[in-house]
């Protein structure tokens, strides 16, 4: 059901690859200001769902509404202009551009494009914010994995999104880095950005998400607060495994 | 009657295209060298066959036994001395493509210049076999049939080599992902050199065979390079069977258009087909989607 408060409303979305139904009649809502975790075993269709929302893939069936507008099947650039930004599971920075330009890439073409001197100063500020100011002239391809992830976030934020999609953005951080990163995301949410995040790091999910949607084989198997959803036996069986309780 | 004629003709022609393209699938598909001098090697082999036949009275089939190993060796050296440094200095596949285009463009001129120096710019042609077979009342030239036969034999042998044997699987692994191949203990440099040299041997074989029934001169290499590239790309880079199929299809189209539409549109038709295939399948007939 699409409620009037939902920023993102996904209903009955299906996407096939050949005979495989990667996403199979999935529905869920995300209210404005919320952080929703999208969880599930490997290959359950999480990234595919993110791709459908961001426009990287077109759904075979179903609707995806952003603040009431149906965006299903629109090209990704149009969706970006509607206010959805994302990061990628396999990090994607612009390899031959420096960090400043990478962020300007997010500034120049979104809903409220900024260019010229204004863009320069905004880009500097965004780099500062993700802790990358000292790397401003380093090329994308020369950054470490983590720095690339930071840069990706800065670029996504540059679009001034209403909805931010994070695909395993926290993967590969060690616990103390995780604390920093979670802090950063909290701040971003504090500025009114709604988020959907795919993550396998349960600590992060528990401390960040308001709600979780849990998928398996393309369908939703549980939904609710992290505590509720992660306690469902089906979820434990398919996703967490026994020693998650340890 | 006309149909059978066109069919047989298309198959022989297509066999020749497939034959010509086979070496390039290895050189480009496995060794990742976009070899612009490919056709020059073919022409050089054709001239060698001509010289061996006319001057040394060695027939082209025996010439294969001479020319192919020499070409294999020469290409192996070229890879080791000339191309490997490019592979080392290129940071990604795109850069290697640009570098190999530039380098083999230089090589093209060197080989063409040597052939010019030795043979001049004239057309050459000779007759070795002029027998004709009849298949269901349609004539078919023995030399062409031979070329197709060799294409099929080489194609099958190569396919089995790549799919059934350990070194072949290693070659395919290199073509799929050179970095991962290293980790699997494969000597990527040796494998690439082998693939490039095998490709060189194949193109030499096709040069010898093609010389039996076409007229050639020192400047014609680029014609074969482009034909081979089109066949390879249409089939899907690195896919041997794709190249075979693409070659046959192009041959058939050319033949049927000549008979049923107009000979003036044969080349236009093959290019149209090629472009359509790419528009429908951007990575060629057998190419992996999203690759």
């Amino acid at each position, binding site marked *: 059901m699409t409620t009037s408060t939902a920023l993102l409303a996904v209903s009955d979305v299906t996407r096939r690859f050949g005979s495989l139904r990667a996403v199979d009649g999935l529905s869920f809502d995300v209210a404005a200001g919320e952080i929703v975790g999208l969880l599930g075993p490997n290959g359950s269709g999480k990234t595919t769902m993110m791709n459908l929302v961001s426009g990287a893939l077109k759904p075979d069936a179903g609707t995806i509404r952003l603040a009431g507008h149906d965006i299903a099947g629109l090209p990704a650039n149009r969706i970006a202009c509607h206010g959805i930004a994302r990061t990628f599971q396999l990090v994607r920075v612009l390899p031959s551009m420096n960090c400043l330009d990478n962020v300007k890439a997010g500034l120049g073409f979104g809903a409220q494009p900024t260019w010229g001197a204004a863009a320069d100063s905004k880009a500097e500020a965004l780099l500062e914010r993700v802790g990358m100011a000292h790397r401003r002239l380093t090329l994308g391809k020369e950054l470490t994995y983590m720095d690339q992830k930071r840069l990706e976030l800065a670029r996504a934020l540059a679009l001034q999104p209403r909805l931010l999609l994070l695909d395993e953005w926290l993967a590969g951080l060690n616990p103390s880095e995780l604390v920093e990163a979670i802090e950063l995301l909290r701040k971003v949410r504090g500025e009114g950005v709604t988020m959907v995040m795919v993550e396998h790091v349960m600590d992060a999910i528990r401390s960040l998400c308001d709600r979780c949607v849990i998928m398996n084989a393309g369908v939703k198997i549980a939904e609710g607060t992290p505590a509720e959803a992660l306690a469902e036996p089906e979820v434990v069986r398919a996703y967490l495994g026994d020693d998650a309780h340890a | 009657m006309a149909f059978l004629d066109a069919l047989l003709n298309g198959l022989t022609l297509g066999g020749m295209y497939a034959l010509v393209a086979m070496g390039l699938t290895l050189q480009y598909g496995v060794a990742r060298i976009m070899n612009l001098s490919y056709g020059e090697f073919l022409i050089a082999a054709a001239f060698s066959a001509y010289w061996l036949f006319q001057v040394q009275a060695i027939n082209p089939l025996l010439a294969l036994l001479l020319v192919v190993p020499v070409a294999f060796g020469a290409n192996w050296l070229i890879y080791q001395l000339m191309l490997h440094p490019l592979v080392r200095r290129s940071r990604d596949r795109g850069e290697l493509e640009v570098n190999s285009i530039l380098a083999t463009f230089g090589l093209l001129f060197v080989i063409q210049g040597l052939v010019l120096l030795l043979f001049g710019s004239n057309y050459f042609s000779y007759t070795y076999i002029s027998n*004709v077979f009849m298949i269901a009342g349609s004539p078919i030239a023995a030399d062409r049939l031979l070329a197709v036969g060799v294409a099929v034999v080489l194609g099958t042998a190569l396919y089995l080599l790549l799919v059934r044997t350990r070194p072949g699987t290693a070659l395919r692994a290199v073509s799929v992902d050179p970095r991962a191949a290293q980790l699997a203990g494969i000597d990527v440099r040796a494998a690439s050199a082998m693939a490039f040299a095998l490709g060189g041997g194949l193109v030499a074989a096709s040069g010898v065979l093609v010389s039996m029934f076409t007229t050639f*001169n020192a400047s014609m290499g680029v014609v074969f390079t482009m034909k081979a590239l089109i066949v390879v790309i249409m089939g899907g880079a690195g896919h041997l069977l794709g190249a075979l199929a693409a070659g046959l299809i192009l041959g058939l189209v050319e033949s049927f258009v*000549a008979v049923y539409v*107009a000979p003036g549109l044969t080349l236009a038709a093959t290019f149209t087909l090629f472009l359509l295939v790419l528009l429908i399948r951007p990575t060629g007939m057998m190419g992996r989607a999203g690759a």
Partner: protein
Amino acid sequence: VALSLPAMADDLPESIRIGYAVSDTGPYAGGAGTTITPNYKLWVEEVNQAGGIRVGDRQLPIEVVAYDDRSSSEEAVRAVERLINQDEVHFVLPPWGTALNLAVAPVLHRAGYPHLAVTAVSDRQQDLMDRWPRLFFFLSTSSHYAEGIVTMLEELRESGEIEGRVAMVNVADQFGIELANAARALLQEADFDVVYSQSYPPGTQDMQGIINSARQRDPEAFLAFSYPPETIAITDQAQTLGFNPPLFYTAVGTAFPLFKNRFGDNVEGVLGIGGVDTDSEVMVDYIERHTEMTGQAPDLWASAPTYASLQVLQQAIERAGSIDHEQVVAEMENGTFDTVLGEITLEGRAYWEGWQVGQWQDGVFRAIGPSDREGAAEIVLPKPDWR
């Protein structure tokens, strides 16, 4: 503005510098390498062996500057400009083919050089000569050649040897199309039954489709207005497919030594453009010299005119007693010259008397048309079976 070099008889150079840029590489290289380059070399060697060209009371040897135009119009234009401006050659010999001759014509014209466009064939010959007053042609127009073969067909029909079913194909480039258009019009006018008429794009390698289609229509005469590689391919595939009409005609390349080398005895009876009069001693002698010096037999269509054009140039210079372009051109326009083609004149700045049709007979490409000209051999019909 004509910039002809000041060349008074008394301040003659030590040698005559002659420049040419022909296609050593690229698609025209085959034609140039067969027809043009060997003749240039032969002529220069012969003249220099004889002490040079006689200008006034002096014998001036020839000095050659040669470039490769790489079959490109732009290269040809620049190479000729280089020859004229940088190398300051006294005369420029023409490149191969209609396209390149037309490309360099304005350059030669501006600089005031004579232009002996031997291998250019165009139906707009007159037009071009009007435009460029020092331009000479040595091969007739395309229609002229078409006329040659069609006239021959008419004669054969009159004598009852054929009824009149003709199949024709042509290469879709300028020369091929002009030939085909002219032939088609003439054939229709003369009420022939054209059972097959198609064109194919330049660069076509496979001719089986065409031969098969033609064969199925069972023509008595098969005319291919083709270029050397296709001439070979067509003949080759006609043999393969057992297509043996009484009259088998292929155009450019039939007269090449290559053709004979390739097909041996099977050339017997094949018709083509050009031909030589084997009764002419000068011609026979020329063929021998050419074969001896360059290691290859001449093209039996355009080689002799090429060589003849050089003889014309030499004789014009000798008669003018000067290398002044205007004087030389005047001699060429008005004189009679002793060449391998016999005594020729260039009235109206073109040589019209060349052979139109030849046929391989007993291993020689003999001239057979126009049949009423002296030296023409009898046509052999029907052509013998392929072996």
